[in-house]
């Protein structure tokens, strides 16, 4: 790994450990391997959002050319958000692409991702299905995001009705995550979701 990249990551790592965000539990950072090319990030779901109470794990890959090129980041924890793919966890955020600047750090990127959870950008979506629901049925979007946070990120708010519907599909022998995706996609209408799953 290029010298400047590993040197900078080491420096950032030290600083992030001392930062008040880590002390306050808003973000966390862990090493995955010894050569500083891969890290595991964690952000707490911001309060007053459907993600509140959840912990979201991120995969961070540091390229050779860091900090001249952005780190590659995706959500490992499944999340229902217009700017994050519900399938792959890929993130649509300008600073991780063409708006990257070399003075940004892993700390500022993690904080930006946390801010993205409180302020979605449905006009520049990563997941078209989620973005459509966000625009056309905000109430249902909120419930769905809360449900996903509860199931995948350890959030405290279970949605009883949704759990029932997932259970119904489970009883039909369908994979749990597949059932949840189908139901979320078809606005929790059991019939349409079933139809799609068996078509």
């Amino acid at each position, binding site marked *: 790994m290029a010298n*400047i990249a590993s*040197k*900078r990551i080491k*420096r*950032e790592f030290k600083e992030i450990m001392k930062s008040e965000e880590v002390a306050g539990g808003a973000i966390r950072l862990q090493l995955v391997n010894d050569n500083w090319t891969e890290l595991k990030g964690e952000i707490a779901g911001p309060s007053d959002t459907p993600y509140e109470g959840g912990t979201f794990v991120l995969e961070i890959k540091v390229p050779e*050319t860091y*900090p*001249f*090129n952005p780190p590659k980041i995706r959500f490992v924890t499944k999340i229902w958000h217009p700017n994050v793919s519900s399938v792959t966890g890929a993130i649509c955020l300008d600073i991780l692409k*063409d708006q990257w*600047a*070399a*003075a*940004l750090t892993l700390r500022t990127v993690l904080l930006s991702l946390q801010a993205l959870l409180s302020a979605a950008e449905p006009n520049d979506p990563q997941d078209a299905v989620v973005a459509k629901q966000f625009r056309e049925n905000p109430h249902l979007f909120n419930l769905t995001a809360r449900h996903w946070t509860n199931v995948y990120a350890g959030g405290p708010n279970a949605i009883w009705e949704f759990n029932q519907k997932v259970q119904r599909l489970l009883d039909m022998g369908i994979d749990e995550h597949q059932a949840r995706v189908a139901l979320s996609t078809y606005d929790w209408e059991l019939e349409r979701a079933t139809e799609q799953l068996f078509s």
Partner: protein
Amino acid sequence: MAETSEARPSASAPGGDAGGEEDKHDERMLECNICLDTARDAVVSMCGHLFCWPCLHQWLETRPSRQVCPVCKAAISRDKVIPLYGRGNTKQEDPRNKVPPRPAGQRTEPENNSGFPGFGFGEGFHMSFGIGAFPFGVFTSTFNFGDPRPSAAPRGTAQYEEEQFLSKIFLWVAILFVLWLIFA
């Protein structure tokens, strides 16, 4: 007098306690915004952000089409950064000889305002002869007195290179013209 002697010990006491902290803070003030290390071959952008020249150079090379400040995203370019020469930096070697070279500091010579120097053919006397197209005049000549030509741009700058390039072009045009006159 009584006031100053009283104020001094009280002012120095907190300063002495926070000495270590302050030193650390001062050091961080001089960190490059890209490598986060103390800036070496430091340059500062017009928006006031400090970088190592090698770091900033690499950043500008990475995206030549979108040259922005890594901190505040103001437009920056190679020609618009200022090198910082500290007093402690007494190395003999010229930092510009390093690869990639750091842009040179720019300084302009003061205007030379000497008036018409009488008939002494000193500075400020220029004479040139030229040959024009036949019916319009065989010889054209120009005399310039006491009109100082703008001083040549300092070596190494873009302007200097441009001037060299232009003078070469004019030289070749003149040679071709003379050849054409002889052989046509």
